[in-house]
């Protein structure tokens, strides 16, 4: 046993290992506290302290050279800090996706750098850097598998996150991108990964090994791109959550390369938490993860589009909307990504307060996948100081929807689409939605008649009790607010 512990210490003096244990414990406590509203802020700080301890402990390893470490830390910290401070709250989802991509890139580069060391030094010398006290205990095959795995998962996390970022930032179309033979290309890439992986792991120092590891990284990058582009923008929350999990798995795999406990523990925690969150998201859409990843929206979309929904959408003016709201006893506000884009959350809160002051019962119905990532709407409404008690979930508000006078849909589309309930050919059929169409009147704030992020037509717009209030969400809500104030 003492031999085992000795091995695990690697380069480390015992106290470094204790610091790693402390960091791991702080990560666990931090994550636990992050999942509760009253302790979340503290939890994040505790986890950050854990990270600081892990970094300092690593720098204390015997024989480290600091010059280049400091350069990397300075550059990375500056970019990270500037990006985090300057990003708008509404752009948070793509920011998290982008940051996640950098984690994947780092893991991939660690795998490459470690392999290059091995390649340049030979196994006997390289093993001494892994386990100075007992190099014989390190295993070549084990290291090779870990390097190959880290390279592929890191690469795929990096490119996949970049695509998710580009889609969410709308620098590339959010709609699924499909091309002829896509499945064939994917299969080819997976085959290339398996083949290169086998070649690499069977002869990690053989003549073809360096080519194989290069193929692994390139194929990983391609797989990240080809597996995310066919997924529609509406499914991006799930993808980001899954990629978050991947970056944790890549970090844990990197831990298996350099035989480091804190990497394995922290990486695994993130890997597991990302999977759980991904499952929660899929459940909210009544779909399986496999369905999200492989069927995309593309396969069934054309048939749904073909039928179309006929009817006439009835526009309404801001003045008439005000009269409706003024007379209403209960109002349900359903925010979506349109509210985020228009930065309308503050105006919406103001309108909510005026309605409440008018003796109206105001609730905000938050669909779990409204916006671009889980809880996106909660964050925005919290930013605007909307009281937490007024936020309700679909299953709580749907049973009483028939008693609601006015349901106000602000920039949401797919999460209120009754086709999910009524139209078996719709790609979102079966997804739980907020049944605003059952309210006495539905006011839909929208820029135009365009379909939602998922690219699906919405029959809600043509229902008898629906009224369209066209325009920028912020301008429209502000107009309603001033109507109330001048009344």
């Amino acid at each position, binding site marked *: 046993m003492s031999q085992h512990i000795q091995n695990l210490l690697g380069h480390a003096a015992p106290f470094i290992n204790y610091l790693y244990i402390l960091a791991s414990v702080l990560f666990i406590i931090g*994550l636990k506290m992050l999942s509760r509203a009253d302790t979340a802020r503290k939890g*994040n700080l505790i986890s950050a302290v854990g990270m600081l301890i892990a970094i300092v402990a690593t720098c204390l390893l015997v024989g480290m050279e600091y010059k280049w470490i400091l350069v990397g830390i300075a550059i990375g910290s500056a970019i990270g800090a500037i990006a985090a401070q300057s990003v708008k709250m509404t752009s948070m989802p793509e920011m998290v996706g982008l*940051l996640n991509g950098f984690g994947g890139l780092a893991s991939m580069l660690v795998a490459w*750098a470690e392999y290059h060391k091995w390649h*340049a030094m030979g196994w006997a010398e390289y093993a001494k850097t892994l386990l100075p006290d007992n190099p014989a205990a390190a295993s070549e095959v084990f290291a090779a598998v870990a390097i190959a795995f880290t390279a592929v998962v890191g690469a795929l996390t990096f490119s996949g996150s970049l695509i998710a970022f580009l889609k969410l930032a709308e620098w590339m179309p959010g709609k699924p991108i499909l091309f002829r033979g896509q499945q064939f290309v994917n299969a080819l890439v997976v085959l290339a990964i398996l083949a290169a992986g086998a070649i690499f792991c069977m002869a990690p120092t053989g003549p073809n090994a360096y080519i194989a590891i290069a193929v692994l990284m390139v194929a990983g990058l391609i797989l990240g791109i080809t597996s995310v582009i066919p997924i529609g923008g509406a499914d991006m929350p799930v993808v980001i959550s899954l990629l978050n999990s991947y970056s944790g798995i890549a970090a844990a795999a990197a831990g298996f390369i350099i035989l480091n406990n804190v990497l394995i523990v922290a*990486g695994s925690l993130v890997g597991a938490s990302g999977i759980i969150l991904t499952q929660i998201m899929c459940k909210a859409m009544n779909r399986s993860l496999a369905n999200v990843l492989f069927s995309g929206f593309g396969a069934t979309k054309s048939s749904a589009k073909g039928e179309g929904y006929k009817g006439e959408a009835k526009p309404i003016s801001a003045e008439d909307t005000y009269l409706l709201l003024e007379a209403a006893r209960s109002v349900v506000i359903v925010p979506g990504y349109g509210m985020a884009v228009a930065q309308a959350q503050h105006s919406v809160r103001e309108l909510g307060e005026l309605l409440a002051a008018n003796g109206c019962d105001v609730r905000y119905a938050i669909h779990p996948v409204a916006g671009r990532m889980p809880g996106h709407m909660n964050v925005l409404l919290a930013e605007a100081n909307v009281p937490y008690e007024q936020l309700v979930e679909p299953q709580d508000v749907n049973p009483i929807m028939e008693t609601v006078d006015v349901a106000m849909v602000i920039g949401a589309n797919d999460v209120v689409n009754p086709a999910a309930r009524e139209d078996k050919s719709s790609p979102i059929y079966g997804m739980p939605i907020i049944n605003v169409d059952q309210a006495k009147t539905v006011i839909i704030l929208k820029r135009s008649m365009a379909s939602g992020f998922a690219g699906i037509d919405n029959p809600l717009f043509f229902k008898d009790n629906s009224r369209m209030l066209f325009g920028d969400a912020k301008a429209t809500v502000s107009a309603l607010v001033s109507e109330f104030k001048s009344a």
Partner: protein
Amino acid sequence: MMGLLFFVFVLAIFLGFELISKVPSQLHTPLMSGSNAISGITIVGALVAVGFSHGGPLVTVLGVIAVAAAMINVVGGYLVTHRMLGMFKSKSADRK
């Protein structure tokens, strides 16, 4: 040795599942962001890669980029999470 690492790995995975199985929905985004910051732990691997740069200039270059990328993930991740959670805090402070 390798067996022990796997032992740690499997335990940590199960711990992760148990830790966050119940989360209120308004915390999903901050939690994702916070755990994303933790995945920047790969900084430890990057530090080791560049700190023991026995492999020549290529290792140094790869290592520096890896440290910078991981650091973007760590610093950006924690700050973004902190900013998001700050909004929840200011809200509850207002109500008191």
